[in-house]
């Protein structure tokens, strides 16, 4: 029987198989940030256990650090500086690769890792962060863990784990300029549920994925966890190999041919078995925006918020009712035209150069609507610099956006900066949970294009309307 790409990478990393169905899996790369990495390194140190392979461990500062220009270790979040200082001193002590504040490599871990060539096809990769699954876009077997599992991996370079099932998601059809990876993944989650994958590994394929750029693939895989998946993965292709060439931590010139030869073999067999196959017709995917407090609460902007009596399951109905109350919305109403207070472009989901380019193409020569607070936080210091070299910062700033330093920023409210009480925010982030972006803040997840268009209109808007109307 054939094997999936996921299974092939898994099998290559099995150190030991146990009778109870678990495997001892070798971990090639470990990535840390100040929020959860600091405690993992601290706990190990307290137990007098050293990091096994420091050169295979990387750390950045992204979660708590401020993004206001001129920032330093001091944070708006009370006690935030302790996390930054702790990670820094642990990183120096353990001699791991560390991207400190004010270094050119600093940024959101899941943005930094591909752009520095740290995540590579066929590697196993963990980080104590749920969005580690983003890196499946490069054909990396990457998944999020807790701090305790991370400690085990730091100490032993292995984890005991049972191989999950694999699900295939085929995305085919016509690629439409108006439909982004974010729209596709919100469509998937809204149709199959926030636990649709139930811990499986999700392999994305199909002609739409083949045509997608690396950054769009990163967005798609990023939200695999919002679909309940252990990880998302995409077969690495020539685009990936080209993308990785010359990157700092990617294979060196004398290794690259051999590495690419190996990477080209990383494919699912034709007769590989999946526990489920989901087919998405891209022609059916429109502009998606969330209306509730779970990523599964998403609709096409042409549609109306579902009526509660359309929902059969009582618990789901109750959750939808609570979500509508929280969001200040009514069943059956449309999202389009809903007044917004703020617009946010950033996060590990949508803050890469291509995201900023598309937003800038909509913002060019336009102004953010009066009263809308608009913020753009590039995903890494490199993204910020590259965007500035193209003049994108000027477009954002002259439209009325704040232009920030890189970091996770207001994707979540850690006690520092947040959006205001009950403010309605259109956001290129990944989670619309209650109180995630601020006390009672009402988050609508959307693509960067939809966020930019909505910022200009002052209401939730289609990117295409705006291009035609204004």
């Amino acid at each position, binding site marked *: 029987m054939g094997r999936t790409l996921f299974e092939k990478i898994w099998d290559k990393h099995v150190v030991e198989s146990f009778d109870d169905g678990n495997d001892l899996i070798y971990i090639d790369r470990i990535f840390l940030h100040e929020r959860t990495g600091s*405690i993992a390194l*601290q706990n190990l140190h307290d137990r007098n256990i050293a990091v096994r392979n420091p050169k295979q461990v990387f750390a950045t500062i992204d979660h708590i650090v401020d993004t206001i220009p001129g920032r330093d270790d001091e944070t708006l979040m009370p006690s935030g500086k302790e996390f930054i200082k702790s990670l820094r001193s642990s990183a120096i002590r353990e001699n791991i690769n560390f991207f400190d504040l004010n270094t050119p490599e600093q940024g959101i871990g899941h943005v930094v890792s591909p752009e520095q060539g740290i995540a590579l096809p066929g590697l196993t990769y963990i980080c104590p962060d749920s969005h580690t699954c983003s890196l499946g876009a490069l054909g990396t077997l990457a998944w999020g863990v*807790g701090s305790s599992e991370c400690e085990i991996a730091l*100490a*032993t370079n292995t984890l005991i784990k049972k191989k999950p099932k694999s699900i295939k998601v085929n995305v085919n059809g016509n690629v439409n300029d108006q439909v982004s990876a974010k729209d596709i993944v919100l469509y998937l989650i809204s149709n199959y549920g926030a*636990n649709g994958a139930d811990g499986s590994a999700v392999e994305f394929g199909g002609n739409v994925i083949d045509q997608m750029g690396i950054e769009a693939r990163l967005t798609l895989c990023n939200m695999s966890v919002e679909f309940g998946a252990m990880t998302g993965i995409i077969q690495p292709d020539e685009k990936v190999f080209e993308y990785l060439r010359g990157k700092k931590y990617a294979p060196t010139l004398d290794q690259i041919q051999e590495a690419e030869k190996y990477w080209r073999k990383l494919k699912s067999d034709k007769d590989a078995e999946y526990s489920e196959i989901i087919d998405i017709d891209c022609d059916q995917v429109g502009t998606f925006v969330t209306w509730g407090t779970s990523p*599964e609460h998403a609709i096409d902007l042409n549609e109306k918020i579902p009526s509660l009596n359309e929902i059969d399951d009582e*618990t789901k109905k109750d*959750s939808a009712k609570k979500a509508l109350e929280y969001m200040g919305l009514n069943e059956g109403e449309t999202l389009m035209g809903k007044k917004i207070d703020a617009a946010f472009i950033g996060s590990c989901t949508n803050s890469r150069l291509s995201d900023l380019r598309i937003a800038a193409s909509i913002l060019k020569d336009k102004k953010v609507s009066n009263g809308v607070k608009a913020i753009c936080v590039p995903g890494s210091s490199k993204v910020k610099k590259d965007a500035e070299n193209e003049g994108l910062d000027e477009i954002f700033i002259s439209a009325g956006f704040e232009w920030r330093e890189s970091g996770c920023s207001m994707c979540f409210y850690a*006690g520092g900066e947040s959006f205001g009480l009950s403010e309605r925010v259109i956001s290129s982030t990944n989670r619309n949970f209650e109180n995630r972006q601020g006390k009672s803040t009402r988050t609508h997840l959307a693509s960067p294009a939809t966020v930019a268009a909505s910022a200009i209109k002052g209401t939730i808007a289609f990117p295409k309307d705006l291009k035609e109307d204004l």
Partner: protein
Amino acid sequence: MKPINSITGIAAPLLRNNVDTDAIIPSREIKKISKLGLADGLFAEWRYSSVQNRIPDQNFILNKDPFQKSVILLTGENFGCGSSREHAVWALQEWGIKAIIGKSFGSIFYNNCIRNGLLAITLEEKIISGLIKNVEENPSDNHIFIDLIKCSIQCCDKEIFFDIHEKDRSLLIEGLDEIEKVLIYKNNIDSFEADHKKIRPWL
């Protein structure tokens, strides 16, 4: 980690789907680099009518008598989804929760539970609804008894059996430290690593 054979006590119904780890412990309640001091922030946005002044919201289940003494949570689908923060598990444990019975769990959260000795049991929704009915009839007396040796749940003279992966069950029962468990295979890891890096030198 303390070995667990059984858990018994008051069970609180929290029948919501997709209870995320931001709701269990909001990011701003994680103030120190520590596994301790988190119980106060557990479910902060739901538990307090004023988070700032820590005024309990009497409508929230864990503030109602006798559920302030709950040791078990009964919940819906995808409990613990979202952020990987292990603080969600630490906060639940410090508050007093020892087991969670739900329709399904976020996979990182589930692993975090097992690593910390918090028992997470998956059951069908209708069985959970039945348990909730029993508990609601008389929460003070209708305790839930979980037997991890037999893999059964007893409540009101009924016994329900559950499945749990053997590795997870033995970790909980033995209370073993996993680093020590893995290091038994140190020689195997060393030789695997040497071969692995020889074949793929770019690692």
